[in-house]
């Protein structure tokens, strides 16, 4: 037995070498044309189906292999920081600014201007909830409607958690970030008042998942939730929730694209930026979903709303 130690060990080693070679060879797959471009996007954007729609067009136009992974904004930006993806398309201006300030981005060129963050579409967040609207937020008017609605939900929710509930993304996504902004604008300390410093608040639920999953959960719990309009329209068929609040400055939702400095395909990423802002694609974005839902899921880039460039 002892005499054959080396033989067996050699066999195992040989197999390990084969595996290593396979790893390196298979991992290189896709380096021949077309060129691979990896993009991380938010689940909110991806679940609407817009990316699947644009993917083939971009691949044909730029001879690329567009590979899109959908995560929460936080996770998407993390992939961008590490350079595991070449570009990110997200919708959280604060965190995008931090990403750029952290020197993780490359400047893109659009309209002969150079900028790290390039906006390319927008829509609105809305607060949806059960048709019965137990917290009575459906008919608010005046300015500051989202904040007022959130206040009502918190007050009524704490008083009667079996009737008034709120479901949150709870996943550090762009939508979650926007939700926290509105809670703050409503005068709450998110950790203390909403999360109860860790103790379960019977009226507030965090799914830690994407928009689709969160909407499904809110539907089951007959709860309110904050969602972007695009995803909501895409899921409306399978939900009993209705839009209750859709006006308010705080509800604007702007999508941007950022080239990742640690990525490996800066030129193809620039192609993506140019693509998203080109007039014909902008027209497609504006018209996306209109036949099925009767209204647009997205609005094309508007300097007045999205900012320049």
């Amino acid at each position: 037995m002892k005499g054959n130690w080396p033989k067996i060990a050699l066999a195992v080693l040989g197999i390990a070498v084969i595996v290593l070679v396979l790893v390196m060879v298979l991992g290189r797959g896709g380096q021949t044309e077309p060129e691979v471009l990896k993009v991380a996007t938010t689940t909110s954007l991806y679940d609407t189906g817009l990316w699947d729609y644009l993917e083939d067009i971009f691949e044909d136009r730029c001879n690329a292999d567009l590979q899109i992974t959908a995560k929460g904004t936080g996770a998407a930006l993390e992939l961008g920081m590490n350079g595991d993806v070449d570009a990110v398309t997200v919708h959280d201006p604060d965190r995008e600014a931090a990403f750029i300030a952290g020197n993780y981005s490359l400047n893109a060129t659009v309209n002969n201007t150079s900028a790290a963050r390039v906006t390319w579409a927008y829509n609105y967040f809305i607060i949806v909830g059960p048709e019965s609207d137990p917290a009575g937020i459906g008919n608010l008017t005046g300015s500051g409607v989202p904040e007022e609605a959130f206040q009502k939900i918190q007050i009524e929710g704490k008083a009667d958690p079996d009737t008034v509930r709120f479901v949150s993304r709870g996943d550090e996504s762009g939508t979650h970030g926007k939700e926290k902004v509105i809670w703050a604008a409503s005068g709450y300390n998110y950790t203390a008042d909403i999360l109860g410093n860790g103790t379960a608040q019977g009226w507030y639920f965090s799914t830690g998942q994407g928009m689709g999953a969160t909407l499904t959960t809110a539907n089951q719990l007959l709860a309110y939730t904050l969602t972007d309009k695009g995803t909501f329209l895409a899921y409306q068929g399978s939900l009993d929730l209705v839009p209750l609040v859709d006006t308010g400055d705080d509800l604007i939702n702007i999508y941007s694209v950022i080239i990742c400095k640690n990525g490996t395909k800066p030129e193809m990423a620039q192609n993506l930026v140019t693509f998203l802002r080109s007039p014909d694609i902008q027209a497609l974005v504006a018209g996306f979903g209109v036949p099925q839902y009767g209204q647009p899921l997205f609005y094309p880039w508007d300097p007045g709303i999205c900012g320049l460039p």
Partner: protein
Amino acid sequence: MTELWQAFTKALELLVSLNPEVIEIAGRSLRISGTSCLLASLICIPLASLIHFHQFPGKRALINIIQTLFSVPTVLVGLFVFVLFSRAGPLGFFGILLTPTAMVIGQMILITPLLLGFIISALSGVSKEIVDTATSLGASGFQTIWLVLREARYAVLAAVIMGFGRAISEVGCALLVGGNMRGVTRVITTTISMETAKGDFELAIALGMILLFLALIINTILNRLQQR
């Protein structure tokens, strides 16, 4: 119950119509899990033999650790592979994160403890008399090991089948290191996860049924091998 029935009919419909997206993800599931199971088996059968047939200090502790790793969550394996192969990580220069290769590696890591543990167990089940008889008849160490493996082949193949089952059914690792990218790293389990999150339960259950159907076919084939 109607949802289950609707899902069943949907599964049949997807299969019979040879729905291209379903064929694509099913093929990818089989390729990735089949490769990881094959490679892991190639490594683990000799390695398990090595461990079983030699006495060394810490052998019991090693087997303990192997069996403990049966309980490793798939998402934890995914995290491990992610951190290792991220471009910001130590093996990032391979650039294999968010590719099927990373998924194969992840599944290999996942099922290795399982394969090792159960193959060692299979070898332990072979009567010591066989080993003694072989040695006394002049068999070399290598020949003896091969003999015992053949004696235990039923249980060894059962271990391989289980390894394949764990590989093809896992979600956490595939989702994290593959990224569920359409046309590239999307497999049946990550699609089930995605469709469930989107609320399309019917499609999710249908895909689950298709996965089980594939597993049935694979197992029938492997079973024939086992009975020989």
